[in-house]
């Protein structure tokens, strides 16, 4: 075996689905001891490329060489056997099994034909110690945090394959501390000579951990560059193919004075639920964006659930236009003019098999009551209107929702609520899993909506996003509202400061 060969070399990879080209002549070279980031907007072909490399899909064109030898893995198991292991973002390990069972599924140590549980436990312990994890390997995987599960998944993949590790969005649901833990593991594996391919949306993380980056756009290769020599703006323009439009806080200062003077028509006082969120006060004025910040598990989503009546508050009152309302269900909240776009778009938001038009019409229909169906002409008009105004692509109202990209699905969900003309719209992580182009569009849309007089509550884990759009930011920690930042105070530093102070005090 010659050392001149790269660890993994893919040349001219092409793939089409039902005549639609997903990948067109893409090259990727991975060296030993390298962390290689794979970037691109949604639909750029990252997932398709990864699935070809790991044996999930077969390729139509191109060659793949592992340590100089041509390979064509036709299944995940075969790719693993060759030395290519994968850790997926969501579909990962089995939560109903123990840590040890997950690590050794399919290759359990046996004695006399029976699984040797003692041996399996010992080997799991030794394996995880290398990753700095000292945990009870006989406990269920579901009893550990996402970060620990992720490391267990990596440990399994590396132990199984040992040459190439592919990570698909490994950090999507981790908080900052957990990300650091994961990166420490990746750096160690790099020193051991592994080649690592990582897909992520977070540019900061790309610069923090990766050596080189390959950018794809619309199924084609844009380029492979060393990150040390690549300015951030250039990377973004490689991804977008255009200069990024900066989002600024124009005219905001002047609006704020007007806003805070006005009496708040929507007020929550002493609102809370035991075991979910401690009682809080919240006034929401027209044309105002209230940001909600906090770490994962701090009570962000729980706050949204309370405001929208998904969870019932056990203390406090909610008043709309000086009249007390009981937000006992989402239906009641919709009746009060509230709307909610949940975080888990795929599971809680869209109905994949329905058309775009049907998805948009859902909330209007719910508001009207099921006895008065919306005519198909009204529905088409509604859909056409929003597809144009929100620039939903492809502009086809009859297309099934599941065939849209993440960004366009999110726009369609926004359209659903906008169609009900709500006075308060709650957005939980509106830009999660969305490419940069759609990201900017959605932020702009939020600004436009509040300029039209709608109130918004935006929950986000991206501080830059919050500081760009929010007039006020509520900071949560430990399921309590710990601070409220206004006007010039709204900066990423202040938010982190608030969380940090609180954590130290606790």
């Amino acid at each position: 075996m010659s050392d001149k060969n790269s660890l993994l070399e893919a040349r001219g990879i092409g793939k089409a689905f039902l005549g639609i080209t997903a990948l067109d002549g893409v090259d990727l070279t991975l060296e030993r001891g390298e962390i290689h980031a794979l970037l691109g907007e949604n639909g750029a072909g990252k997932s398709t490329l990864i699935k070809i490399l790991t044996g999930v899909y077969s390729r139509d064109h191109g060659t793949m060489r592992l340590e100089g030898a041509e390979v064509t893995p036709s299944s995940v198991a075969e790719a693993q056997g060759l030395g290519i292991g994968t850790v997926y973002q969501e579909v990962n390990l089995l939560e109903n099994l123990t840590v040890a069972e997950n690590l050794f599924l399919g290759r359990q140590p046996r004695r006399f034909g029976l699984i040797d549980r003692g041996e399996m436990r010992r080997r799991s312990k030794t394996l995880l110690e290398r990753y700095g994890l000292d945990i009870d390997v006989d406990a269920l995987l579901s009893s550990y945090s996402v970060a620990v599960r992720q490391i267990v998944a990596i440990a399994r993949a590396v132990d199984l394959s040992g040459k190439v590790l592919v990570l698909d969005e490994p950090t999507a649901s981790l908080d900052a501390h957990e990300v650091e833990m994961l990166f420490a593991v990746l750096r160690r594996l790099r020193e051991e000579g592994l080649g690592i391919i990582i897909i992520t949306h977070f540019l900061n993380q790309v610069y923090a951990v990766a050596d080189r980056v390959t950018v794809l756009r619309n199924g084609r290769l844009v380029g492979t560059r060393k990150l040390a020599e690549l300015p951030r703006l250039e990377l973004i323009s490689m991804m977008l193919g255009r200069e990024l439009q900066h989002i600024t806080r124009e005219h905001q200062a002047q609006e704020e004075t007007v806003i805070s003077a006005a009496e708040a028509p929507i007020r929550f006082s002493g609102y809370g639920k035991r075991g979910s969120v401690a009682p809080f006060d919240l006034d929401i004025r027209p044309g105002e964006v209230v940001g909600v910040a906090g770490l994962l598990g701090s009570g962000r989503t729980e706050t949204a659930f309370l405001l929208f009546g998904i969870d019932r508050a056990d203390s406090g009152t909610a008043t709309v236009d000086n009249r007390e309302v009981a937000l006992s269900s989402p239906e009641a909240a919709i009746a009060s003019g509230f709307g909610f776009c949940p975080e888990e778009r795929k599971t809680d938001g869209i109905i994949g098999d329905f058309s775009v038009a049907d998805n948009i019409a859902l909330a209007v229909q719910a508001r009207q009551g099921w006895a008065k169906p919306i005519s198909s002409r009204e529905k088409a008009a509604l859909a056409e209107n929003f597809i144009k105004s929100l620039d939903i692509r492809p502009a086809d109202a009859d297309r099934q929702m599941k065939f849209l990209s993440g960004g366009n699905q999110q726009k369609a969900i926004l359209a659903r609520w906008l169609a009900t003309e709500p006075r308060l719209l709650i957005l939980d992580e509106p830009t999660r899993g969305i490419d940069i182009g759609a990201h900017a569009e959605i932020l702009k849309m939020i600004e436009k909506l509040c300029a039209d007089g709608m109130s918004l509550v935006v929950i986000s884990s991206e501080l830059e996003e919050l500081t760009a759009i929010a007039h006020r930011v509520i900071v949560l920690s430990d399921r309590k509202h710990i601070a409220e930042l206004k006007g010039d105070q709204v900066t990423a530093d202040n938010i982190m400061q608030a969380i940090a102070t609180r954590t130290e005090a606790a």
Partner: protein
Amino acid sequence: MIHTRNLPFVTTLGIFVIAYALCVLQFPNMLSTRVIGNLLTDNAFLGIAAVGMTFVILSGGIDLSIGSVIAFTSVFVAVLVGSLGVHPLIAFAAVLVISTLFGSLMGAMIRYLGIPPFVVTLAGMFLARGAAYLISTESVPISHEMIDAIQGFYFRFPGGGRLTALAMLMLLVFIVGAFIAARTRFGANVYAIGGSQQSAELMGVPVGSTTVGIYALSGFLSGLAGIAYTLYTSSGYSLATVGVELDAIAAVVIGGTLLTGGVGLVAGTFIGILIQGLIQTYIVFDGTLSSWWTKIVIGILLFVFIVLQRGIIWYSNRRLAEGRLKEI
């Protein structure tokens, strides 16, 4: 310390012990080897079938064909041995092969045609019942010296109870079943598929052959249960054992196995069978209660267990959330 995943099993065991103690308080005679021996013998065929059902449910599936396959097997054996004079061992081997193939075929349809197990095994249920009617609509008596020998064979417990061949067969099936579930790769794969078929597939579990294997095992055990039923009643009857699959499902769920798959123990199913047998025995001892009370109590117990399982899921989610808070 009890892991939460064993909590349903421990609860079932606790309920059984308490229920048995209460029964004994009222009828001290119930604490005799005679009662226990009969309980095991009377429920032998159900227990054998329930072991197969445990694997099916652990994998997240369901098998509705069990009762019909038992009826088919018993009629088939009875006609072969009773009417045609075939040697029982040949008849047993033949039905075990047929029922195993039948199960494999259903498993293959579930896996390779992507049809839900409920639908496939519902079709299998009608098919096997129909085939049983086709063979004979009469109750066919069976008599053979070897069968008499098996029926007459037992170990005597101190206290006059009998551990019959049928009871021993059931216990053996439970022990082997527990070993397969806990200590073989096939067993581990069953739990994996029940947890998430997609994840299991991505982790390299041979989902296809395992699924076929699961339904083949259930078919084989249904056939074995049919043989046990034939030996128990000394006859074969195509109208018998209607709805036995539902009793088996009840035993599995009461035994602490999640209907959604992935969590449960073969030993739990054994306790589930014992609880059902205990209720029947109590009704016999009481003498005034209608035998339908068995169904009512089983129904209540099922409700309790489904609520308990929801509670455990809720509790472990909450604990996880609290764990996260501490980390922050």
